[in-house]
């Protein structure tokens, strides 16, 4: 699915270089569920942004779906993301002015999917997420758990090969958090590759493998007992 080799990422502010990732290498196979853990500032989100083609590495190789993507320009990255990648954020990042249906429909709009097909696919995923009765509501009218289910629906509606989740339960209570983790696990069992950044040891247990980062480097990379 993806392979990173000696990945480096530095940020420059007022001539001071901050190294976020320092020579990270690993490989993720299709169908894996990988949890990335580590303390704040260790480079987890930076790694996730690079894996999700939201950012480019400063150095190193990144191969995704058999293609070297580390040096793509923004437009090419945008093009590559469509249909291949899905995102789930800690703060849901739903668009307040759009209904649940419209939020979920968004990736399909940018993929150029026909309206009739969009409708069918959105309704299907909303039912699957058990949120179809809220299709006409706005995000502000939903609970946190419901909002995250909508966000997951949006992430997977285009049937992406890889879903990247950045602390998906960080803003949820334990019950809703558990629900979300079950959903992700279910998606993974159906074949979707998932990489999830988390602080929670409990959530990491849902993954088949855990990578621990510290100061921009991988310190452990172990398979979990399921």
């Amino acid at each position, binding site marked *: 699915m993806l392979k990173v080799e000696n990945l480096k990422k530095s940020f420059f502010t007022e001539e001071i270089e901050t190294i976020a990732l320092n020579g990270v290498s690993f490989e993720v196979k299709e169908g894996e569920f990988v949890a990335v853990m580590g303390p704040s500032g260790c480079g987890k989100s930076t790694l996730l942004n690079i894996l999700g083609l939201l*950012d480019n590495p400063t150095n190193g190789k990144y191969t995704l779906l058999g293609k070297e993507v580390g040096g793509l320009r*923004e437009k090419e990255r945008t093009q590559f*993301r*469509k249909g291949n990648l899905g995102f789930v954020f800690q703060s849901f*990042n739903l668009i307040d002015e759009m209904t649940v249906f419209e939020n979920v429909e*968004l990736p399909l709009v*940018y993929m150029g999917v026909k309206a009739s097909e969009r409708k069918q696919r959105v309704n299907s995923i909303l039912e699957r997420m058990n949120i179809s009765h809220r299709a006409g509501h706005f995000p502000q009218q939903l609970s946190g758990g419901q909002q995250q289910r909508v966000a997951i629906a949006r992430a997977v509606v285009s049937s992406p090969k890889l879903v990247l989740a950045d602390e998906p339960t960080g803003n949820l209570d334990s019950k809703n958090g558990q629900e979300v983790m079950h959903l992700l696990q279910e998606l993974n069992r159906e074949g979707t590759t998932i990489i999830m950044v988390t602080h929670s040891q409990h959530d990491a247990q849902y993954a088949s493998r855990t990578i621990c980062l510290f100061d921009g480097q991988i310190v452990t990379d172990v398979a979990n007992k399921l």
Partner: protein
Amino acid sequence: MKTALNNFITTLKRYKIASLLNIAGLALAFTAFYIIMAQVHYSMTFNSSIKDSERIYMLSPYSEIFGGWEESVPNPICYDTAEELPFVEAIASMTSYTAEGSVWINREGGSERIACNMVNCNSPLLDVFSFDIIAGNREDFKQEDAVAVSESAANAMGITVGSIVNLADENLNPGTPLTVVAIFKDFEKNTILSDKQMFRNDNRKNGMDNQNWNYSVFVKLKDGADPNDYAALWSKKFREFGEQLYAEYVAATGNEISNEEKAKALEMTIKLVPMDDFYFNTEYEDYPSGSWSTTVTMLAIAFVIVIVAFINFINFFMALIPVRIRTVNICKVFGAGKWTMRMNFLLEAVGLVVVALVTALCIVHAIDGSFVNEYITGSLAIADNIATISFVLAAAIVMALGAAIYPALYITRFNASMAVRSGFASSKAGRALRSLLVSLQFIASMILMIIALVFSIQYRYMVRYDIGIERENLLAVEAPDLSGKSNIFIEELEKIPGISGVASANNSLFGHSHSEQSRAIKNRMVAINLWSVSHNAPEVLGIPILAGEGFTEGKDGFIITDYTSKATGLGIGDKWDDVEITGIIPHINFMGANSPKINTMLYSGQLYAHGIFYVRLNRGTDIEAMSKEIKAAAKRVEPNASEPDIEFADSAIAKVYGDTKKQTVVISFFALIAVAISLMGVFGIVLFETQHRRREIAVRKVYGATSGSVVAMFNRRYAAIVTACFAIAAPIAWIIAGNWLEQFANRIELSLWLPLAVLAIVALLTALLVTLRSWKAATENPADVVKSI
């Protein structure tokens, strides 16, 4: 108060661009409002500074023959009427036109020629208008050829009571000595007397006959008198006079005119125009006047501009709601009172308005004395407009409080414990309200732009309108000081290489300076407008002779237009005042495109002195060099003469449309301000929206939106608003512009491309602004945004 001031400064610092845009928009609006209000104040208080202005009236007869109200009146009838009516306190006469001439002043070491504006009058004028004599004696003004001089003119000319001045050549009876007997305090600028520097008592000697309409007559009535009583007696006396005159005419000529024509000639109504309601009578060409509808339009525009600016202001405060709501709630948690915070919010609004007003006053101070004054009759000086400033300040504070009160109440109404995640400004209702407010701005701007465009095109059309002469390579040379030596000056000019011909006239040919005459001809009353020109004028001006021979040098004669010939039945060989009509020319319209076809006659003869010269140049003549040569020729003819004014005939013709030009410039200027303010508003809103929708933009980009599609998304929204506003603005502007064009006898056809051009301009400017602003948000790295929110 200190806290409020601190908050105000913090707001300014924190929201620099939005605050600056707001202040700039408001300052521009206040500047426009101030300028317009200064003009409105000038118009509305015209003549009101004259003592007892409400009891002073100008007598204005309605002339059926010329089809309008006249400012000159048969004097003896007026005085006879006044004598019989005890409620007439005083009556006086004054020439309606102000002679822009010169006088000679004797000084040590020789005489000096000085230009001045002079009117002839009789001595009661000083009483009717309550002249404030500051030196000399009112009684002495009763002597013929005594003059009263305004204080400012006396100072400028260096004369005082007892000085003798002599009439210069361009006046009737040049050389006549005039004695300065009184100096009076200048009248306010917005009075009919303010432009007159010297009043000469000529005992109305050119108005002792009822057939000579050379003077305006003013009556001061006692309190409670009914002006209609005066008008009724006047009309009766005029009829008596007419009957007598007609009997004399029939006895002398044996001719009679039809009863209908007779009734038309003998029935004359008169109105008494009160001084304090004088300004909006636009029919009196010799007195300053203004259009009521223009004043109202200007006032409406002033309010529209202020409203457009306040819409930005409201939007600004609405936009601040979600940004500040958290701060407000935190302050409440720590004990801040609801009303204290509301007051702070309101004081911030007032502070912004005061800063904008001060900026506007600085702008007004800077532009006072610049080209702007050419388009405004009223004074722009701050000291002259304290009442206007007070009004603007009061209105501004009320509007500021009005604009801020709702956001202030809204933002403070939540429980302090409530974690507000989205405020009114980010809700659908908030967006709809902002869209509505922006729409109002667009509608106002588009209406003003369309109207300004129509005005501008009509003005260009009029300036280029064919008035019946060849205007290319034709110079108009105004040299009134040479009117006594016009023949010598023409000879001098004709010697200059590059000049192919020189004609002359008594007044500028372009405009309203001409003589109106009416005579009983072939059993009917005929009215004609007459211009006095030199014998070679048709040739120099390029006017072909259609029939007859034109003028003969040294012989009096008339030439009429073919239109006049058809309308009056006059033809070659007929006579007007015993002078023969010798030729017929095509229709000429010296009064310009906004005048209908009128009976027009050219006179060549000895009756009038000529001070205006028309010089035909050969093609390719160096104008600057020619101008110098003409001035040098004038100097040779009369060394003491003031330098002639030289301009192309095109420019002289353009001056005929001065009022239209003023309206066009003023409307265009204010349209520009309205558009600028509206675009500032759009910029501010896009700024706010792109900040507020950063997360949305980032999410869209994460899911495949390109920067271009994000920019297009913003543009689509504003394109829809602009299109909808155009659908409302275009018909309104179309109706207003159509009504305005009605006043012109010759006018442009309204064409669809005019509003479409405005739509294109507004759409383009809006797209430019929206693209500029949204591009920054659209090109942000979504990774930075999603993790920072």
